[in-house]
């Protein structure tokens, strides 16, 4: 199983990119390639999913959305307190890091889909809506946790920003959409108008409402070449992940361990919800587990730079991109699949 997972082109290309950096190859991907590919990937799964969902059961869809929100809001809180316990990071770092784990990684999700396809395991389409839904809530929780952290820390320069009155002048002066009560609305909007969310949900709607004839013309683009593009994307992301792991020494062992334990906790929660609560098949359960286990490295980092500037970016980037992402792609997915088999089988 784990073997057949490792013999999947998508996974092998991720490994290739990872190894390329480890052996210090001068292989460089053009700065925008990953961005272009991720827009394509989100567009393709969105269209595809929307097309399927148009035929799906509304009740189950809404139910999945609700549980996606619960996972999105819940896991960061678990992560936050777990991090506080490690005593290795200050509360603001903890808030920023945990936000990443509440959100999701489309790259990991798609690798899991490829993994299931390869094994011939079928799955529901509902997890796709959950993917779309789970991008944003974690960002919001992250901000709330950060606001809370600032109060506990009571940093003069920052206190004001949670009690609007305090530094109203400053906030109004410079800090549109920054943290601070009066800007919370702006941040909420940011969380829900996040680029990835717009592409994914927008494409789902288009996939659902456009004429079948129109959709037919898109399939060669969104279906046939999809796997190849995914491989290229994972190829580059493998090298990016390897580059990030270079900062490991900064992160340290304890924090590094968090990057592996947290997805396991998330995966377990996700699998239980998928199997017991939503009653999905083995495939669908695996995907929900992957959603809960994966950490965002596209949507959340910029959001945290903006809203929790005090947090150290190399912490959350190294954890989500350098540790959790590779762990899920290589080890996690087969594991969550096995777990799903236990729970559903």
């Amino acid at each position, binding site marked *: 199983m784990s073997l057949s997972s490792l013999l999947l082109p998508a996974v092998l290309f991720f490994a290739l990119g990872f190894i390329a950096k480890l052996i210090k190859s001068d292989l460089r991907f053009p*700065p925008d390639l*990953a961005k272009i590919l991720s827009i394509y990937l989100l567009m393709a799964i969105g269209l595809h999913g929307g097309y399927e969902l148009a035929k799906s059961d509304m009740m189950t869809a809404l139910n999945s959305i609700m549980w996606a929100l619960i996972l999105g809001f819940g896991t960061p809180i678990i992560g936050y307190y777990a991090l506080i316990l490690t005593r290795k990071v200050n509360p603001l770092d903890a808030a920023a890091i945990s936000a990443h784990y509440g959100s999701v990684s489309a790259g990991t999700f798609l690798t899991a889909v490829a993994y299931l396809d390869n094994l011939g395991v079928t799955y529901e389409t509902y997890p796709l809506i959950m993917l779309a839904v789970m991008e944003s809530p974690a960002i919001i929780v992250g901000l709330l946790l950060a606001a809370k952290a600032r109060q506990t820390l009571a940093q003069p320069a920052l206190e004001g920003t949670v009690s609007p009155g305090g530094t109203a002048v400053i906030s109004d002066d*410079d800090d*549109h959409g920054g943290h601070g009560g009066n800007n919370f609305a702006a941040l909420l909007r940011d969380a829900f108008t996040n680029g990835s969310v717009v592409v994914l949900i927008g494409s789902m709607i288009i996939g659902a409402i456009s004429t079948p004839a129109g959709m037919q013309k898109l399939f060669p683009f969104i279906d046939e070449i999809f796997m190849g593009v995914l491989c290229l994307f994972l190829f*580059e992301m493998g090298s990016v992940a390897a580059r990030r792991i*270079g*900062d490991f020494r900064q992160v340290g062992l304890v924090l590094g361990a968090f990057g592996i334990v947290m997805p396991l906790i998330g995966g377990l929660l996700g699998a239980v919800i998928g199997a017991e609560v939503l009653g999905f098949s083995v495939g669908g359960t695996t995907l929900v587990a992957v959603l809960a286990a994966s950490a965002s490295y596209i949507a959340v980092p*910029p959001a945290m730079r903006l809203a929790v500037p005090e947090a150290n970016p*190399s912490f959350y980037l190294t954890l989500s991109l350098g540790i959790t992402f590779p762990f899920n792609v290589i080890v996690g997915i087969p594991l969550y699949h096995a777990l799903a088999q236990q729970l559903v089988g």
Partner: protein
Amino acid sequence: MVTLHPMKLINIITSDALEEKLIASFKKYGVSGFTILRARGEGSSGLEADSSGFDANIHVKVIMPAERVNALLESLERRMLKGYHLTVFVADVQVITPEKFTTPLR
């Protein structure tokens, strides 16, 4: 012989996540324009702008009259106090058309 007039060049290097906010504040400080260059780099907050380009830096340049510089710098300093990672430096430059740099952006 072209006559040259002194101006200040404000340089800001930071994450592109902050772009919109910086621009918005510029207009408040009556700048006549700005230029943005894409950048990568490394500093106290570690490696920024890995090859993926998901997480890129920007190098913002603003030419403005010396007398207006302080207000902008103060607002940038306030941001830094809030934790934002801004690498700011000022240079002396000379321009041919001073009026071009004193008429604020619409």
